[in-house]
């Protein structure tokens, strides 16, 4: 340690010596100096639960992409002689009422969950970014109108309004994506607006404005990068919530329609007490699939938040 300090004081004057001093003090505490981005990455990689979550999600994405190659059976192919068979060497997780392989259905249903998560979240994040940026940057009347709209949609009992959507458009995976996408933007809109309100007062934005930079350029070059962190965290938790919402709707018979397999609609049959009691292979695996997936995503979200945005408490 003393060697470091000596070498620092021995270098020539100016910025260089200051930098070296800072570096040597840092290394004296066993730390290196990283850019904020690398520091965030390092912290994220050190979050053990987030890493476990990431592994689970990567596996899930691989399953979703290569479902046709990986699944041992066609997910909608019926094998009536084997209907309701318990897990065995052929049907690893057993077969359902119609003799369809449960493992294959679970693997194929990963596609549904992954795509609902991604599409629904993309829809509402785009809306939230646009409205949040307009509201926060311009303020005034634009802000008031958008914020009242946020108030209104926020006081919707969301699931009940989704029911209206489904009643009108009919149950299908696309309508589930649209319904979740069109109703979930108020939370993030408010979040981004707050963030932008703070950024707008920053000196570097003032500087950009005083040099005559156009609004559009200020928003894209200087404001949007400032809300990347909350966006990433919010979108991650959002994917988990969307997957959960899809499962819930499909479970109620208002989402993905059989014979297409979704983790939610695979649980419909289990509402029968006899099956619940004697055929746990029909309801435990899809339920666990939802829980593990959403948990993994939420762990990633937690890790990202700790790494990117330690102050943010909203989820």
């Amino acid at each position, binding site marked *: 340690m003393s060697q470091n300090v000596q070498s620092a004081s021995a270098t020539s004057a100016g910025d260089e010596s200051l930098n070296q001093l800072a570096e040597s003090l840092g290394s004296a505490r066993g730390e290196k100096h990283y850019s904020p981005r690398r520091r965030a990455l390092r912290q994220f990689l050190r979050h053990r639960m987030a890493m476990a979550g990431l592994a689970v999600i990567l596996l899930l994405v691989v399953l979703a992409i290569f479902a046709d190659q990986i699944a041992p059976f066609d997910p909608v192919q019926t094998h009536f002689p084997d209907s309701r068979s318990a897990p065995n060497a052929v049907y690893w997780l057993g077969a359902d009422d119609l003799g369809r392989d449960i493992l294959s259905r679970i693997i194929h249903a990963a596609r549904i969950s992954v795509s609902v998560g991604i599409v629904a979240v993309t829809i509402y994040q785009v809306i939230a970014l646009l409205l949040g940026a307009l509201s926060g940057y311009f303020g005034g009347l634009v802000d008031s109108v958008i914020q*009242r709209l946020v108030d209104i949609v926020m006081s919707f009992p969301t699931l009940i309004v989704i029911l209206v959507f489904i009643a009108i458009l009919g149950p299908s995976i696309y309508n589930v994506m649209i319904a979740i996408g069109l109703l979930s933007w108020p939370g993030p809109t408010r979040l981004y607006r707050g963030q932008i309100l703070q950024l707008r007062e920053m000196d570097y934005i003032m500087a950009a404005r005083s040099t005559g930079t156009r609004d559009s350029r200020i928003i894209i070059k200087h404001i949007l990068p400032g809300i990347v962190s909350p966006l990433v965290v919010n979108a991650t938790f959002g994917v988990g919530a969307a997957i959960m919402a899809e499962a819930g709707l499909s479970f109620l018979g208002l989402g993905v329609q059989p014979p297409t397999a979704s983790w939610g609609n695979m649980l419909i049959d289990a509402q029968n007490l006899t099956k619940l009691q004697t055929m746990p292979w029909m*309801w435990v695996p899809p339920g666990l699939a939802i829980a593990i997936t959403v948990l993994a995503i939420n762990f990633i979200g937690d890790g990202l938040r700790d790494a990117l945005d330690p102050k943010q*408490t909203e989820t």
Partner: protein
Amino acid sequence: MARYIMRRLILSIPVFLGITFLVYLAINLAPGDPINTMIPFEQIAESTPAEIQAIRESLGLDQPLLIRYGRWLYELAQGNFGRSFQQKAPVADLLQDRIANTLRLAVAALVIALAIGLTSGVIMALKQYSWLDYLLSVFTLAQWSTPPFFVALAAIYIFSIQLNWLPSFGMNSVRGIDTAWQSFWDQVRHLIMPATILGLYGSATFARYTRASVLDVLHSDFVTTARAKGLLNRTVVVRHIFRNAAMPVVTVVGLNLANLLGGAVIVETIFAWPGMGRLGVAATIDRDYPLLMGVVVVGAVMVLVINLLADIFYAIVDPRIRYE
């Protein structure tokens, strides 16, 4: 205070109009003739074109959308929600009992959610970075990530089928109820599982907010001052920390109730609890629009009232809000 409440009440009027108008608009823009959303299909099939035209005029369907919406609101103000297609009864009658049942479930769930959420949130914050904090954080996240319907199925499997402790569906038993006390106890037994599952699901949000809120206060100057004065730890925690940490949590209670009502839709369906959520699902499947509108209006009013109460409570605890 009265002025604040008045102002807040007036502010919730446009929100109510906004919600109902959007839903009204959505139902009226549904593909097909709006008359299909107003009277049952069989009635249309049995009527001549002239009769349908007469119905159309009597329902005001020849009027512009805004006027129709105004008429619908006017009827609503008099408690007329229209007639359910499927159940052939006034929607208001159908809703009446259901509202009480859903409220009973939601209030019980809210109490459980608050009890679990606040306790674990406070423990996590006061023992930050301890194994207890870690354990409770993982538990909270797991609760939040497990779909309530899966927990419900597992609970029915364990507590109804294996242990035979609790009933798995409905709100009342059909037999063996003689006294008022038995009937009360019977309803409580039916309520335990759905309310606990809904409450556990809701508790996760409270726990996370409470933890963040207490941590925020924990490191503020006035807490350091209180400790420096030599106050008992208990006094600092109860008087200085809890009081200030409670406020942000209160607003979340309001917002969370909307989620709880959503969760109630699923829990009511599984446990065959005769509430509004189950009615809403049935109305959706049957495309029973007047009934669905009724459910939405009542749900929206519930959320508005709860948010209003939360704001008023907030203003009582924190006088600065009133003078903003």
